[in-house]
């Protein structure tokens, strides 16, 4: 059963006199527990598709169903709540909160979910240990390397055990060692936690690790390959 379903998605930007068609009739289904990469050249619509799948942006036409819930017509307030409960995000630029420690960053979404402190602490330390950065729990993001920061971002995304993790170019700012290490961790989390991972990337190392690769070009899916 598909946990993510996108039907006839189009997205047109009208910021300039000439409309830009970022997505043209995307139909897509992703099963629970998949480790999927959305690939394609710059400007092909990867990030736009990921934003729409994550409820951060609205499609011009079409609809997105996540875990059986149509999020396309959902009101902003409900959509924020839906994202909080169901989706983990990993951003290209990490986007950690600089004034919080590593552990506080990991706990942040659980805090928004009003989980008890004991549960938050235990889960955050568990994830930081799995990520190999438990010793950095009390440090601020500025004291960590790029790879370590992205691990914190992944830990934050996983902390509340969301159904899906959407990662937009998660390795774009990382060196090869950090990328490899991060991918191993995400693959392990995918396997152990059963979280569904969807990446947008044009990093070959991520593509190699993915078990499914969806290729976009000019806003359309030109291939969908399962391995």
């Amino acid at each position, binding site marked *: 059963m598909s946990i993510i379903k996108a039907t006839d998605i189009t997205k047109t930007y009208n910021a300039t006199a000439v409309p830009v068609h970022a997505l043209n009739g995307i139909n897509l289904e992703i099963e629970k527990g998949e480790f999927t990469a959305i690939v394609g050249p710059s400007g092909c619509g990867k990030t736009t598709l990921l934003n729409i799948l994550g409820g951060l942006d609205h499609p011009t036409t079409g609809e997105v169903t996540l875990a059986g819930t149509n999020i396309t017509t959902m009101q902003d307030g409900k959509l924020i709540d839906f994202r909080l409960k169901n989706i983990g995000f990993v951003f290209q*630029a990490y*986007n950690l909160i600089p004034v919080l420690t590593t552990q506080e960053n990991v706990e942040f*979404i659980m805090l928004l979910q009003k989980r008890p402190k004991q549960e938050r602490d235990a889960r955050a330390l568990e994830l930081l240990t799995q990520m190999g950065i438990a010793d950095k729990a009390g440090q601020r993001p500025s004291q960590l390397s790029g790879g370590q920061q992205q691990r914190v971002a992944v830990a934050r995304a996983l902390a509340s055990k969301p159904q899906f993790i959407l990662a937009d170019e998660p390795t774009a700012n990382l060196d090869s060692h950090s990328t490899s290490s991060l991918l191993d961790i995400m693959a392990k989390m995918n396997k152990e936690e059963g979280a569904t991972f969807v990446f947008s990337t044009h990093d070959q190392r991520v593509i190699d690790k993915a078990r499914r690769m969806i290729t976009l070009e000019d806003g359309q899916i030109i291939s969908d390959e399962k391995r």
Partner: protein
Amino acid sequence: MLLKLSWKNIWRSKLRSLVVIGSIAMGIWAMIFGNAFMNGFIVSYMANTINHDISHIQVHHPDFKRDQEIKFSVSDGNQKAVQIRSWQGVKGAATRTLVTGMVSSPRKASGVQIRGIDIENEAVVTRLDSLIGEGDYFEGISRNPVVIGSKLAENLQVSVKSKVVLTFNDVNGTLTQISCRIAGIIKSSNLSLGESYVFMRQDDLARQLGIEGEIHEIAVLLESQVDPETIVSRFQSEYPGDLVETWQEIAPQLAYLQDIYGNMLYVLMGIILTALVFGIINTMLMAVLERMKELGMLMAVGMTKIRVFLMIMIETIYLGIVGAPVGLLFGWATVSYLNSKGVDLTAYSEGLEAFGYDSILYPYVADEVYLIVTIGVFITAFVGAIYPALKAIRLKPVEALHKI
């Protein structure tokens, strides 16, 4: 969570936050000091007028004030004054015999009010004896000693022991002249004391007027914490036939002045807080704009708009919470110091005394001003935070996340 995050957020840019905190502290200090300075003037002016001239309460015959005719004396005035002196809350009560007349020296003449006073009780009520700058308080002259103000002495070109002649109508309307000598000259910034009165012993004046034993005015000085209205009510219930007035009724201009100065606090607050609100808006707007990406992330991962709004509001309130005590403390310390030492304005004494102000100013702030100023600052912080907070929640996560 929001409280902790907001607190940490305000220290992201220490310098910027310290500038706003400094502005808040400086604004509060300026409001307190400005108010204290203005209060110093008004308190000094009012205290001067009440304590040395009009007193808190005056009692007259109901018709006396209309024409100031000497036949309208307070019935049993001296006995009433004795009674009043024994009342709780009354510091003193002095009786006066009044007549309008003219004082003349060999060189000049001037219209004055001649005040026949009970010199002992007058010293209690108006501390007239303490104001004598030259000569003595009705001493050193055996026959018809008078005390006049320094301005009047200057106008008449007379000095201590000089002879002056008082001219007035007695109770029968007969023009009467008496020759007096100046026993003392009053040095006071109070304009009336300086040039409008001639003080002489009550018996001397009453004898000349032909109304021995009668008085026209009882001036009552109260303990500072006593409300004049309570004494007025008591007097009216015990002696219903007399006209009893509080200082606000006797000198309504003083009450207006008090109101005006009271409102000046709000004018001052309005000016300072308006400047402050723009400073806060500017700072918080910068704080929002420079972390749009982070705010976008917060909303993307599930932070509701109301929480984002509250976070910005709390950050601003925190700036006020840090800045306000600093400003209050400095304001209090400055006012306390200057209140004990006094601000020496003798360089401007001529101009100040022309308006009845003392040249040494004692700034003073009422306790409630600290509260009013604090509330004003927090309202300002609250108002100043609204626009940046609205700006933050209007961000669309998908757009904010891609801001550089």
